[in-house]
């Protein structure tokens, strides 16, 4: 019997190894293409083994560095401010909701539940945010609507209830701790694993966010990295589809520009930080997901 188990292991390991390669190879391809020369790309297309290497793509990126740095700042602003606001506002709500002897709790539970059952949908959200709140081209639209997450609130509430004994809160109160002191000095430190998991997911969500930017941000100075990537893509398609309207010099510039390797270089800059940060947060995911059994 032991033999049987052992004999299965190599096959399993090989299968898992292949799946791992499948997961990572597209990302490797991006890095390789970003370092490929333009001739190699136009001759062989995207390939893992380019005929010649070059830094053209990355050099071209540095030409646009002003716009890219600007977009990086917007993305970092959205990620940092959005995540901190979400963790703070949502956990404050969750802590209050976790207090069983508070008479407002049942009402608040229903108040949250209704938002999970029914939503206004994209259209009315859009019209109300632009027409009534005037959030078009306002950087607040990137961080404020997501600052209170009902789903995360219920996860945090469950976490507090199962990890912070009520007797601890009572004891702290006996010693004269006020609610604010209790929340900041006792509850928040105890919530660290939960905050790390939800915070990382929220940060990734903000970093990769494109839909809100696409709908609400039209000022190029306020474009996040993802929106910048979309814009570059669209303008290249536009140029290629309208070749006949361009001057010869423009066509020449377009043909010699290392468009593919440049796009992939920008992609590397965009994906890099998350893929580097992620292994440090991985240990919190399992916890973060398993505390996710939502119950009202």
């Amino acid at each position, binding site marked *: *019997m032991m033999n049987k*188990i052992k004999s*299965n292991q190599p096959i399993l*390991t090989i299968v*898992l*190894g292949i799946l*791992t390669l499948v*997961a990572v190879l597209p990302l490797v*391809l*991006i890095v390789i293409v970003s370092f490929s020369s333009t001739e190699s790309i136009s001759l*062989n297309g*995207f390939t893992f083994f380019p005929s010649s290497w070059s830094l053209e793509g990355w050099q071209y990126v540095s030409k646009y560095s002003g716009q890219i740095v600007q977009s990086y700042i917007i993305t970092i602003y959205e990620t940092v401010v959005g995540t901190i606001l979400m963790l703070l*506002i949502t956990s*404050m*709500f969750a802590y209050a909701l976790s207090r069983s*002897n*508070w*008479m*407002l709790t049942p009402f608040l539970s229903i*108040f*949250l539940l*209704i938002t999970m*059952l*029914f*939503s*206004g*949908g*994209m*259209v*009315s*959200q859009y*019209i*109300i945010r632009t*027409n009534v709140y005037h959030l078009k081209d306002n950087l607040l639209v990137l961080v404020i*609507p997501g*600052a*209170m997450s009902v789903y995360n*609130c219920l996860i945090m509430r469950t976490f507090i209830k199962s990890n912070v004994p009520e007797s601890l809160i009572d004891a702290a109160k006996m010693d004269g701790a006020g*609610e*604010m002191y209790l929340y900041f000095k006792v509850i928040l430190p105890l919530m660290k694993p939960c905050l790390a998991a939800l915070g990382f997911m929220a940060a990734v969500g903000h*970093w*990769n966010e*494109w*839909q809100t930017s696409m*709908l609400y941000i039209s000022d190029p100075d306020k474009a996040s990295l*993802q929106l910048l990537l*979309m814009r570059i*893509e669209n303008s290249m398609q536009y140029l290629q589809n309208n070749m006949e309207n361009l001057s010869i010099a423009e066509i020449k510039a377009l043909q010699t520009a290392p468009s593919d390797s440049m*796009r*992939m270089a920008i*992609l590397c800059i965009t994906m890099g930080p*998350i*893929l580097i940060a992620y*292994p440090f947060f*991985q240990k919190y*995911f399992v916890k973060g*997901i*398993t505390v996710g059994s*939502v119950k*009202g």
Partner: protein
Amino acid sequence: MNYTRSMRIKAFGENMWKNKALLLLILPGFVLIVLFSYIPMGGLVLAFKEFNYTKGIWKSDWVGFDNIKFLFMSGDTAWRMIRNTIGYYVLFRVVGTIANVSLAIALNECRHKYFAKFSQTIMIMPTFISFIAISFIVSGLLADNGYVNNILQSLGFEKIQFYIEPKYWPAILTLVHVWKETGYGSVIYLSALAGMDQEMFEAADIDGANRWQKIRYLTLPMLSSTIAIMTLLSLGNMMHSSTGLFYQVTRNIGALYPATQTLDTYVLNALSEGGSTFGITAGVTFIQSVVGCFMTVVVNLIVRKISPEHSLF
């Protein structure tokens, strides 16, 4: 009666006053929910109005069910979108669940723990890549001079124009979905496996069960409740689809709409083009909201019967 009611009000008031700091804690979240969830719900009336920018939502004229009627009368777009939305939901649920559970079992069975951990780390990575980046990757693979066409050519086949032919896209989108979500999706099943009773497996070993028998008769039945719960909870989102996948990865190309247009991409498209058809688009979101609400309530009734600790309310 009156006496007890006034007593109750007094007790409630005292409780509120005693916990006034808690009121302060919920205030920001409360205001945000009212502003960004409850007030837009009122905006759903737009589905029954002819939207006029100068009049605003509340003062626009009522048109009854005209918007929704128009949606279903004007060609088969509406039916196609609904078919695509629900079809992809079912496809992704079935294929995705099989992939998630298989990967979880494979990782769990792997005796090289460090290797399993490493390959899990790598396989979760695609979850954190934005759909904009993925649309770049997919076009790098499928474009005219892309990776796939290069291989086809070197093998002597004709090139395939993926961005014109809708018929390939159900398979492409499913592959992209599985590639992106499986690593992360398997985590929840893996943690369910970690919590399983090991004694049962030892007993099965003594009875001479082989590996496949143990998976078939012990592991899968134990995972079945997790699978059922995950499937049921997802039903509330049946009318929604990932705009990243269906709008970005398909590059919003009209020729592909027969296989790729869903309700959400229709709405997103209408909004980003800023047309005058807000009423009709609002009709689509109204249908989504009503079906979503109905499904969530029904599903919750079922979940409360079979597994009360997972129910929403």
